[in-house]
């Protein structure tokens, strides 16, 4: 069966055999960049289509069904349209920052891709402070949003950007704490070690109720961090028309749009890694036969399956709930999520010290 396992080492060995080390490294970089960009493009297309289909089915509609079989190429057509559209820059906008902002948001998504383990032994950069790296880099995206809101010279954009600033700064905390519970259980910041620690069971099962609570907190916090409904205050369609990207059109808008979906993918991938064992197959205790069958499913399929389940969960939220108000959003974080996370972290620390987890 096809597996991504070991592909990286094979490629590296071959490259080092053919070229001198510097050139090999350069070629590797190019390959990685190309792969990352193509992954972005494919993910963007797939996730947008998925969102539209999920929304449509929840809303008793059919969704896109004209372009290609079952509307499969709808997003391709949309992308073509966005590329060909004129990218307008408002007259009084700060042109440099206005053009830079979508790229900053995009860049953050790309940087976050580095430490994610897509399959067994298939990882761009297994940095030993992986979790720390993710939580620090992901908070950079607010800079892009603030930049876009400020540079547009539009009051709606500015309001949206300011909301986004307040939102991301506060929800970083509970997302961080939720991640921290797993770090406490594992005892490592490295993503590959976190995955390996879940060989005999995923943390969401092994960690008892605190892990479940941490997972719920994590999902809520990352939904807020990616500016998704019910926390989409930065865009808040019915209040601020389109929030921080009101003035964007054409390709720049497409980049924002793409970045939103990439961010969802990344936070869900991290969620899957931390709580659902990343590429680790589902193993149940001593059921040898069952475990063996599960091992036959490639690790990349496991990883993608878990990630897309979480993405579906976030989409499900979006099409069910109304939007919060800005003060309620901050109330939710500071009065509910943060105290619960702190308490939860304490519980997890006790469990980890006493070794109560499986």
């Amino acid at each position: 069966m096809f597996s991504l396992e070991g592909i990286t080492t094979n490629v590296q060995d071959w490259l080092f055999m053919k070229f001198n080390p510097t050139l090999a490294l350069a070629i590797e970089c190019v390959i990685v960049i190309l792969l990352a960009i193509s992954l972005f493009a494919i993910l963007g297309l797939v996730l947008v289509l998925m969102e539209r289909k999920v929304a449509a089915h929840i809303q008793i509609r059919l969704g896109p069904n004209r372009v290609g079989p079952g509307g499969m190429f709808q997003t391709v057509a949309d992308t073509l349209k966005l590329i060909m559209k004129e990218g307008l820059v408002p007259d009084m906008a700060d042109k440099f920052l206005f053009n830079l902002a979508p790229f900053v948001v995009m860049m953050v998504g790309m940087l976050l891709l580095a430490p994610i383990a897509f399959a067994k032994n298939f990882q761009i950069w297994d940095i030993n402070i992986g979790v720390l790296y993710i939580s620090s880099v992901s908070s950079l995206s607010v800079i892009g949003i603030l930049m876009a809101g400020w540079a547009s010279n539009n009051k709606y954009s500015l309001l949206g950007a300011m909301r986004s600033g307040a939102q991301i700064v506060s929800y970083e905390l509970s997302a961080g704490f939720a991640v921290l519970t797993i770090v406490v259980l594992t005892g490592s910041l490295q993503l590959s070690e976190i995955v390996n620690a879940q060989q005999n069971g995923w943390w969401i099962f092994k960690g008892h109720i605190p892990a479940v609570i941490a997972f719920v907190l994590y999902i809520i916090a990352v939904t807020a961090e990616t500016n998704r409904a019910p926390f989409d205050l930065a865009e808040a369609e019915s209040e601020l028309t389109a929030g921080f990207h009101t003035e964007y059109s054409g390709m720049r808008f497409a980049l924002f749009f793409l970045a939103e979906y990439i961010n969802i993918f990344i936070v869900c991938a991290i969620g899957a890694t931390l709580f659902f064992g990343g590429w680790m197959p589902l193993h149940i205790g001593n059921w040898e036969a069952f475990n063996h069958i599960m091992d036959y499913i490639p690790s990349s399929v496991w990883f993608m399956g878990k990630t897309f389940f979480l993405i579906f969960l976030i989409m499900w939220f979006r099409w069910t709930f109304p939007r919060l108000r800005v003060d309620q959003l901050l109330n939710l974080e500071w009065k509910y999520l943060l105290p619960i996370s702190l308490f939860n972290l304490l519980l997890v620390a006790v469990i980890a010290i006493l070794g109560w987890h499986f």
Partner: protein
Amino acid sequence: MFLKDYISEVVNGVSSLLKGMRKTGYYFAHPKEIITEQYPDNRATLLMSERFKGEVVMPHDENNEHACTGCTACELACPNGTIKVVTKFEVSPEGKKKKAIDALVYRLELCTMCNLCVVACPSDAIKMAPNFEHSVFDRTKLTKVLNQTGSKIREGIE
């Protein structure tokens, strides 16, 4: 007690959210509930109500005869000047002069489908048809002459 209130608030909040998610999840899992009508594709099966007020037409029978006497009742009843009756005098074989319509000009772009002309017509010469696909590229095509060329009034209608 504060802590009890706090916990029950959280539990009630989460359970209300889960109830909503169950509802939307039900519809996601039941594609049979989808109510989309794929309009241009379902033209063959699309059932319009026979009373639907889409446009004013003048029914002609197989002899190319209509029932309009040119009394201008519809023109008077119309609130927006949609209908214009152009009359002429026809000379019957016996040499009697008789008023008849030359053209019943109907301007669809002015029509609000209020049905007052149909109600006003004493000889039921015009009626509403359920056709709703009126879009054209040229505005002048919306001005229609309802009586067909060469048509004449049916015998016996005064």
